[in-house]
């Protein structure tokens, strides 16, 4: 910017125009904002996902221990419980006394003798809709059903007694024998304990032969009181006079069934079932009562059994002795009960069984012993040594919680989730989540000799109560997300009813006692499977198409082909998914072999067509070279036709005449399948091998041959390669099957209509346009002088493409594939609709899978906000995010390498 007149005499405008400068500033501003904004947006998404998922790792919230040093009574209660607002609790004792007390002060609200003379010799408790159902057994051989429940009623302030007037909102007070809390300025809530028992029935006769038939009685179902048809069961006579105390009872109540079992001192064990069926029209309930005796055998030297348990469906009765011996009766078939198995729960003769309780759902037994160990047992279908493949229902010890020496004194299980509170002989109290093995918290340290007598969870699982000889203990507890530990999410977990630890995703169901299974591996596996299969089908087609259009087509055709392919990308994936699920999948299922054979015949027919074109006289091909490209379209129908014609033969040779049954493993040998699998590989191998070994020789020999002769030779070689490939594949197949390998069970297995092949094909369709268009751009962007130099040096177009253009454009091709991969990983709708959403972990091409993204789409709308399920779904989203992030980063690094190489050219 020297001053003075310029050399040319032309005065250059000194200042850049304002509009240009403004535009400059503005665009710089917007680009900066846009760039930073994008980075912020992406990190905000990550932070948000983390924010929602992070609380999964938070430990359970346990409030301070509130201890009242006024004992209710010093002896061990049969059962304790508290009301859902955690204001009061009750304890039932062996002499029939029911004590209700305040939790905060320990003040006794009410003491009541439930039965005048009888001493309770056996008791069982079960949760039913509306409260705790109780079955008590007495010394005279009788038993009585009843319920001990808290009833809640609301009183308007206007109707309330005068003494409550001054009470503040949120405070509670004693109100006669109940507790009252002011919940709003206008309303009080009164919680009153109510115990009601039916007339005792005799169960001492045990055999109850007279009732063994089917008895039908009709009773009106009343919404409030359980319609107990006790008096209608013929076998249950009024109490017998011979003193034959009931030693053990257990019962269960469901909406439709009532089952109970009783064991008396003289060794009779019986099970009784009352089945109700409700008529939806009239609301009438019909009961059917059945009773059967069970074949009880005393255990030598062990005295009477100590525990009696009835499983959740009433299909097995378990009797356990103090040494850990347990007999399980199969009562599924009421007409012929049998002993299913005998197990030793402790597997250590020095220990004693001190507590046996059910976990929520009455399937998992929690066995506590004198060393302080708790083991969780449940029946599972396991393979026993006997006949191969024969599964037997056996108890398995799935979880073990080791002890610290002090014996287990009592076990309480939650009414909502699969947690248990374990009280020990030294006063220690631990809270465990059974499925995830997690110690949620030590509520109380062991101190001296004041054992925990009983422990109970609050009905809403937000508190815990325990009784010791010296007082009442109470905690407020929020378990938060006990189901999710790193181990539970990513490793195999032993779920209830399974024979071994497994990866399972089954997130929710309609009942509370469902055990949620948040094993994320099947979803990650499904995502990888979907991605791999779709890339396997999509990438070769897209890349070869890109090379072909950019290197071998003239620009006129190219300018039409490219937009046409890009138009494919505009198909919404939901439409593709819909077509895949409802049109494509059934067609493929009906013509599977045709479809598989066409994978070979269509490429072959194209190659064959190329050879035929070579054979044509040169004048003809030159004159009609415009038709060369359109004539290629004949290859597709030709290949399809060929596949259609060959399919029956292939099915006969390779798949024993019925591919579905062959895949299912019902018929046929492994060899045919290997042949079909190896043939495409062998084709590549043979083609590559011949050109490698004979390529130079052929070139030298054919130097002076006529064009016609070359073409003929080429055709012959093509046929020879095909034949060679067939022989090669046959040899490999023979070898593989001779060595005893079978493809079924691995990569191919039983055919399911919605499967990875269908999804891979359709999703390949979805990713082809992206990969194609980006790689085509990359290839076209290779400088023209490289191409010209290569062609000028005598290289054929094919040599130019494979040795010059493709290596130069490698970085672009690679990003194209990576972007396609990104799309495949995140693709939702096609997978959701066409993959069946089965959370399996098998590589089988012919069955489905469930991907992370489809899983989120299916389950997020249903998940309760801030529940474990909801947060776990966000965690799966985070995993998906991390997967794509890592993949893209790796891809970017590799791309940079390629690019550097390309620049060095």
């Amino acid at each position, binding site marked *: 910017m020297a001053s003075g007149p310029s050399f040319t005499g032309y005065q250059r405008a000194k200042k850049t125009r304002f509009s240009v400068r403004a535009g400059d500033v503005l665009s710089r501003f917007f680009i900066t904002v846009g760039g930073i904004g994008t980075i912020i947006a992406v990190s905000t998404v990550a932070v948000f996902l983390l924010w929602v998922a992070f609380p999964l790792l938070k430990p359970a919230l346990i409030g301070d221990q509130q201890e009242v040093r006024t004992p209710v009574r010093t002896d061990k209660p049969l059962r304790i419980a508290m009301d859902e607002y955690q204001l009061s609790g009750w304890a039932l004792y062996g002499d029939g006394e029911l004590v209700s007390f305040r939790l905060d002060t320990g003040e006794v609200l009410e003491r009541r003798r439930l039965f005048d003379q009888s001493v309770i010799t056996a008791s069982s408790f079960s949760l039913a809709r509306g409260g705790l159902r109780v079955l008590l057994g007495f010394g005279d051989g009788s038993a009585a059903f009843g319920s001990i429940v808290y009833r809640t009623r609301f009183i308007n302030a206007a109707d309330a007694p005068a003494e409550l007037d001054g009470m503040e909102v949120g405070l509670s007070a004693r109100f006669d024998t109940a507790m009252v809390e002011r919940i*709003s300025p206008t309303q009080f809530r009164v919680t009153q304990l109510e115990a009601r028992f039916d007339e005792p029935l005799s169960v001492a006769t045990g055999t109850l032969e007279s009732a063994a038939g089917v008895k039908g009685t009709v009773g009106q179902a009343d919404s409030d009181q359980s319609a107990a048809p006790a008096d209608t069961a013929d076998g249950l006579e009024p109490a017998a006079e011979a003193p034959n105390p009931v030693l053990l009872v257990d019962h269960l109540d469901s909406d439709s069934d009532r089952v109970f079992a009783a064991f008396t001192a003289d060794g009779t064990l019986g099970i009784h079932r009352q089945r109700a*069926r*409700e*008529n*939806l*029209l*009239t609301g009438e309930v019909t009961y059917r009562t059945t009773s059967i005796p069970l074949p009880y055998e005393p255990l030598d030297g062990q005295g009477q059994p100590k525990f009696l348990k009835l499983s959740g*469906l009433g*299909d097995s009765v378990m009797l356990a002795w103090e040494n850990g011996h347990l007999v399980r009766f199969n009562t*599924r078939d009421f007409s012929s009960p049998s002993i299913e198995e005998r197990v030793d729960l402790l597997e250590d003769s020095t220990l004693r069984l001190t507590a046996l309780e059910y976990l929520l*759902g009455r399937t998992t037994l929690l066995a506590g012993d004198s060393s302080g160990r708790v083991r969780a047992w449940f029946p599972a279908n396991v393979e026993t040594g006997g006949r191969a493949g024969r599964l037997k*229902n056996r108890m398995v010890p799935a979880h073990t919680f080791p002890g610290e020496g002090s014996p287990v004194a009592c076990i309480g299980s939650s009414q*909502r989730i699969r947690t248990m509170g374990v009280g020990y002989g030294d006063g220690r109290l631990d809270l465990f989540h059974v499925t995830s093995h997690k110690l949620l918290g030590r509520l109380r340290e062991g101190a001296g000799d004041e054992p925990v007598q009983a422990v109970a969870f609050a009905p*809403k699982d937000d508190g815990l109560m325990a009784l010791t000889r010296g007082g009442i203990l109470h905690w407020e507890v929020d378990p938060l997300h006990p189901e999710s530990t790193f181990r539970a999410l990513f490793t195999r977990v032993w779920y209830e*009813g*399974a024979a071994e630890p497994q990866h*399972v995703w*089954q*997130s929710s*169901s*309609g*009942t509370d006692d*469902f055990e949620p*299974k948040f094993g994320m591996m*099947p979803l990650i596996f499904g995502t990888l499977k979907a991605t791999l299969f779709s890339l396997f089908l999509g990438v070769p087609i897209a890349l070869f198409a890109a090379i072909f259009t950019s290197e071998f087509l003239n620009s006129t055709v190219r300018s039409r082909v490219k937009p046409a392919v890009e138009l494919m990308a505009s198909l919404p*994936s*939901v439409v593709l998914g*819909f077509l895949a*699920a*409802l049109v494509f*999948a*059934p067609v493929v*299922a009906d013509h599977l072999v045709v479809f598989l054979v066409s994978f070979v015949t269509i490429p072959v027919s194209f190659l064959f067509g190329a050879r035929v074109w070579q054979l044509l006289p040169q004048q003809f091909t030159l004159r009609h070279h415009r038709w060369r490209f359109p004539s290629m379209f004949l290859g597709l129908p030709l290949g399809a036709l060929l596949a259609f014609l060959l399919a029956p033969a292939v099915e006969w040779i390779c798949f024993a005449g*019925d591919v*579905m*049954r062959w895949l*299912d493993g*019902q018929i046929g040998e492994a060899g045919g399948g290997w042949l079909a699998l190896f043939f495409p590989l062998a084709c590549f191998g043979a083609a590559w091998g011949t050109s490698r070994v004979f390529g130079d020789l052929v070139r030298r020999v054919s130097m002076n041959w006529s064009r016609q002769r070359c073409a003929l030779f080429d055709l012959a070689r093509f046929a020879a390669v095909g034949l060679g490939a067939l022989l090669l594949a046959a040899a490999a197949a023979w070898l593989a099957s001779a060595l005893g390998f079978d493809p079924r069970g691995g990569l191919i297995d*039983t*055919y*399911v*209509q*919605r499967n990875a092949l269908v999804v891979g094909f359709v999703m390949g369709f979805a990713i082809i346009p992206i990969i194609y268009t980006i790689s085509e751009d990359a290839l076209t962007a290779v400088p023209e002088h490289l191409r010209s130099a290569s062609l000028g040096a005598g290289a054929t177009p094919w040599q130019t493409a494979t040795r010059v253009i493709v290596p130069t454009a490698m970085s672009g091709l690679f990003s194209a594939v990576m972007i396609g991969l990104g799309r495949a990983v995140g693709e*939702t*709708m096609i997978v*959701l*609709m066409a993959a*069946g*959403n*089965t959370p*399996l972990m098998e590589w089988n091409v012919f069955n489905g899978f*469930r991907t992370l993204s489809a899983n989120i*789409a*299916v*389950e997020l*709308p*249903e*998940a*309760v*906000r801030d529940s474990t399920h909801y947060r776990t779904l966000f965690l799966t989203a985070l995993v998906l995010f991390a997967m794509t992030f890592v993949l893209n980063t790796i891809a970017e690094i590799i791309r940079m390498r390629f690019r550097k190489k390309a620049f060095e050219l």
Partner: protein
Amino acid sequence: MRKYLGVALLIAAALTMAANPVLAQVQVDPALPQYKPVPGVSGSIKSVGSDTLNNLMTLWTEGFKKIYPNIQIEIEGKGSSTAPPALIAGTSNLGPMSRKMKDKELDEFEAKFGYKPIALPTSIDMLAVFANKDNPIKGLTLPQLDAIFSKSRKLGLAEDITSWAQLGLKGEWANLPISLYGRNAASGTYGYFKEHALGKGDYRDSVKEQPGSSAVVQGVASDKGGLGYSGIGYKTADVIAVPLAHDASSPMIPATPDYAYTGEYPLARYLYIYVNHKPGSNLDPLRREFIKYVFSAQGQQDVVKDGYFPVTAKIARETLEYIGINPGF
């Protein structure tokens, strides 16, 4: 994407609706009154919940809108589990559910409002087990169903059932594996089937979870070896409803209305609408009239039209009284 899902389900629903069968002639209880319009009804109905009830809700709201043209209606049906969160958050005023609320859901509702929501039994559904229309199967027992759909086999059969041959089918059917279709875990149908047909056992991983009832029927219709469960209302001519029996010694009960009413069909259930109603208070006119409409002759006629079974006048009367509406019949 959710929009796409909606579109897809809509297409699927439309396809199924088009082929909706004329089920056995079900009569609406003649004691039910015709609905009579009242003045002063306005506002918007927002319903979030069961997919099983989706078509039925649409029919009801359409009928209701004909009477009161100036009300707004929005219906979302993705599964029963979506109903409680929406009711609690206040984003919906009706919560159709094909199962009862779980205790946990009741608790959450109660924690927010201080009282429990009210369940209105609006109609009766039979959960049908569908097979392809060409399938010659005569019937299935619940233990068989359990061995087919569940990996736990809680009902006690000794072996998994994976092929039609194990169910006694001959010829070409004997070679077919059973291809399983079911609903996604959000749906009440999923939970109901698990509880009542599988003894609360776990589903097998190979059950193809479909996002809607019609997708299940479509799947079975297009899959020769298919077997799936969903509400009877989604039955089309391309599938058959397999008769069911409690156990091997009980008779096979076909999925017809008579057996649903008597309670003999093992998988019959109520379909509910949950409402947020404070005990003792009066419902707003919009919901009051809508509920009256549902329990009127027209509303129950819609139930029949959709392939479900109407409730009796007795149930309708009790329900209306329970929620503080004068039934007037």
